[in-house]
C-alpha cells in the first residue's frame, strides 16, 4: 500500500499503478458488480413468481407442520436480506438448487447441455463470419451498386425474419421435401452414444474418436440450424463490416495509397481491411454472444439438447431453479464475451489507451 501512496506524489514506478493493472482491477470490479446485479434480478424474479415453491415440493395435501418444516428448510422464514445473501453465496459456489424436472442439481444439467449450444453457436458464427465479412467489404467497395443493394436487402431480410419460423421452413423444405439434411436432434438415434464424450461436442468427439460415420451424420443434423443462426450473424456482421469499411475508404491514407499507384486489391485488403480488424473482432464477439441467446428458439425447433431448450422446457413446467440457473449462466457468458471484446479493443487499438 505504501508504494501506491508514494506513487501518487513521487511518481515512482510500481507494478500496481501500471495502466494494465488498473484496467484489470476496473474490469474485475465491473464484472463483479454486473454479476451481483444479475443475481439480484434473478433473485427478485424468483421472489415475485406466483408459484409457491413450498407447495410444489410438499404437495397440496401436506399437513401444516410438514409445510412449515419445508418452509424453514428452504430458508424462507429468514429476513429477505439474509435470504439474498444466502442466494448469492450459493450462486457463487455454483449451487443453483435442484431441478424439479430432472431431479439433478441444475449445475450438472447445465454443464451437460452447454457443449451442444456452444457447438451450434460456434458453427453458426464461423458461417456468419466467412460469408458476412466479404459481403460487407464488397458492398462498401462498390457502394451504391446493385451488389450493395442486394447485400442491404439480404441483411434487412435477416433482421426481419422470425428465427423459429425460418427454422420450421428450413425443416419443411430441406428435411421434409428434399431430404437433404438430417431431422431434429443431434444425430440419428442409432448413432447416439457411440462415440465417447470428451468435449461434449459431437463433431469434435467423433473426430477425436476417428468415427467418421458419426461425424457426417452429426454434420447433416447440425448444418441446417447452424446455417440459420449463421444467417442472422451474417446480417449483423455484413452491415457492421460495410460501415467500418466505408469509414476507412474515405480516409486520406487510402487516397495516398491509390495515388502511389498501389493495386486496388492491396489498398482494400492490405490497408483498409487491416485497419478494421480490431473493430471487427469486437463485433464478432458480440454476435457470438447474440447467437448463444438466439439459439433459444432455434433449439426448440430442432429439438437441440442445449441450454436454450433446457431453459424453455423448465419454464413451461415452472421449474424456477432451472430457469434462473440457466439465465445466470447465459448472462455470465454474455457478460464475459462483452468484456472480452472490450478488452481486445483496448489492447489492440492504440487510440483507446
Amino acid at each position, binding site marked *: 500500500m505504501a508504494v501506491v501512496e508514494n506513487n501518487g506524489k513521487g511518481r515512482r514506478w510500481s507494478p500496481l499503478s501500471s495502466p494494465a493493472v488498473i484496467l484489470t482491477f476496473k474490469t474485475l470490479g*465491473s464484472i463483479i*458488480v*454486473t454479476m451481483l*446485479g*444479475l443475481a439480484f*434480478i*434473478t433473485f427478485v*424474479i*424468483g421472489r*415475485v*413468481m*406466483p408459484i409457491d415453491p413450498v407447495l410444489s415440493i410438499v404437495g397440496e395435501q401436506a399437513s401444516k407442520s410438514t409445510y412449515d418444516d419445508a418452509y424453514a428448510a428452504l430458508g424462507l422464514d429468514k429476513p429477505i436480506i439474509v435470504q439474498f445473501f444466502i442466494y448469492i453465496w450459493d450462486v457463487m459456489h455454483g449451487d443453483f438448487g435442484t431441478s424439479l424436472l430432472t431431479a439433478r442439481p441444475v449445475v450438472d444439467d447445465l454443464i451437460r447441455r452447454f457443449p451442444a449450444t456452444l457447438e451450434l453457436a460456434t458453427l453458426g458464427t464461423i458461417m456468419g463470419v466467412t460469408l458476412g465479412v466479404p459481403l460487407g467489404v464488397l458492398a462498401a467497395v462498390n457502394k451504391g451498386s446493385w451488389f450493395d443493394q442486394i447485400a442491404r436487402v439480404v441483411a*434487412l*431480410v435477416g*433482421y*426481419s*425474419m*422470425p*428465427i*423459429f*419460423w425460418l427454422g*420450421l*421452413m428450413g*425443416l*419443411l423444405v430441406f428435411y*421434409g421435401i428434399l431430404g437433404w439434411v438430417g431431422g431434429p436432434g443431434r444425430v440419428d438415434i442409432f448413432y447416439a452414444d457411440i462415440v465417447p464424450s470428451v468435449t461434449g461436442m459431437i463433431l469434435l468427439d467423433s473426430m477425436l474418436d476417428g468415427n467418421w460415420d458419426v461425424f457426417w451424420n452429426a454434420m447433416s443434423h447440425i448444418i441446417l440450424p447452424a446455417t440459420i443462426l449463421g444467417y442472422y450473424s451474417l446480417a449483423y456482421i455484413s*452491415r457492421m463490416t*460495410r*460501415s467500418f469499411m*466505408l*469509414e476507412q475508404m474515405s480516409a486520406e491514407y487510402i487516397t495516398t495509397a491509390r495515388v502511389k499507384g498501389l493495386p486496388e486489391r492491396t489498398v482494400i485488403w492490405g490497408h483498409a481491411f487491416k485497419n478494421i480488424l480490431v473493430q471487427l473482432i469486437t463485433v464478432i464477439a458480440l454476435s457470438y*454472444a*447474440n447467437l*448463444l*441467446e*438466439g439459439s*433459444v*428458439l432455434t433449439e*426448440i*425447433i430442432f429439438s437441440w439438447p442445449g441450454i436454450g431448450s433446457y*431453459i*424453455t422446457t423448465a*419454464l*413451461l413446467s*415452472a421449474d*424456477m431453479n432451472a*430457469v*434462473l440457473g*440457466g*439465465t445466470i449462466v*447465459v*448472462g455470465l457468458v*454474455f*457478460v464475459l464475451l*462483452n468484456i472480452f471484446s472490450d478488452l481486445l479493443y483496448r489492447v489492440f487499438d492504440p487510440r483507446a489507451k
Partner: protein
Amino acid sequence: MMETNMQKQTLRDWLLTDTPTSRRHARYAAAYSGWLTLKSNTMAMVGLGILLLLLFMAAFAPLLAPMDPFVQNLGGRLQPIGADGHILGTDSLGRDLLSRVIYGSRITLYIVTLVALIAPIVGLLVGTVAGYTGGIVDAVLMRITDIFLAFPRLVLALAFVAALGAGIENAVLAISLTAWPPYARIARAETLTIRNSDYIAAVKLQGAGAMRIITKHIWPLCISSLIVRVTLDMAGVILAAAGLGFLGLGAQPPSPEWGAMISEGRKFILDHWWVATVPGLAIFTVSLGFNLLGDGLRDVLDPKEGGHS
C-alpha cells in the same frame, strides 16, 4: 411586382423557404424537407406503405375479414390455400386463416404501440436525469442500465414472463423491461452534449429550474434520435413478442396472435405447411416494414449515422 410574387407563392414554396418568418414556419419547413428526403428513399416508402397497410388492416378488421376468426368448423379443417371460401386455407380447427391473420394485426399493433410508449419514456427519464444530475446519481443509474444491457434480452424476457405469468400484458411488460436500457444510453449521451451548451447557460441565467430545462429544452432534442431507435427496435419487439407467443408465453389461445398461430401450425408442418407459413409471412412482412422505414428515417433524422450505413 411584390404583390404578384406573394400571390403566386404556393404552399410548397412557403414550406421550402430559406427565410422562415416565424418559429412555427421554420419547424414546418424542416419537417417538409425531411419528408422530401424520406420520399426519395424508395425502400423507406415501401416500409411506410407496409405499416399503413397494417394500420388499415387493424382498424377495419371486422369489415376486411371474410369470416369470424374464432368460429370453428371441424368439418372443414386444414383446407389448403385457395380452398373454396378460404383464400389462405384453414387451421386444425377449421378457422379461416386469412381472417385470423387480419385480426392478429390488432394484437401485433397493440403490443408494438405499448412497448414503443413504455420503453422509450422510461429510457428518456433515466437517461436525462442521469445525464443532467451527474455525480453519484449518474453512476448508479448507468450501472443499473449496464446490468440490464448485459443480460441477453430474450432470456431475460423469458424469465420475467415466467415470474409474471403468461399473457399479452405481461409479455409487453417483460419486453419493455428489457428494451429500455439502449434508450437511456442515447438520452444520456444527448443530455451530456446539450447540458453544457451556451443556450442552456442562457436559460439558466433567466432563472429556469432543472425541471424546466429537462422537459422543455433537453427532451425535445432527444426525441429525433429516440424515434429512429424506436422504429429500428420495433422489428425486434415484434420478433420477441412472436417468439414469446410461439413458446405459449404471450397471447393465449384462441387469440389469433401470429406467433401462437405458428406454434399451432408446427404440428402439421410436413403435411399442411400453410398453417405455419401464413402467419410467419405476416410477421416477416411487418418487421421488414419497420426495418425499411427505420433505415430511411435514420438517413433523414440522424445525418451523423446516416452517412456511413
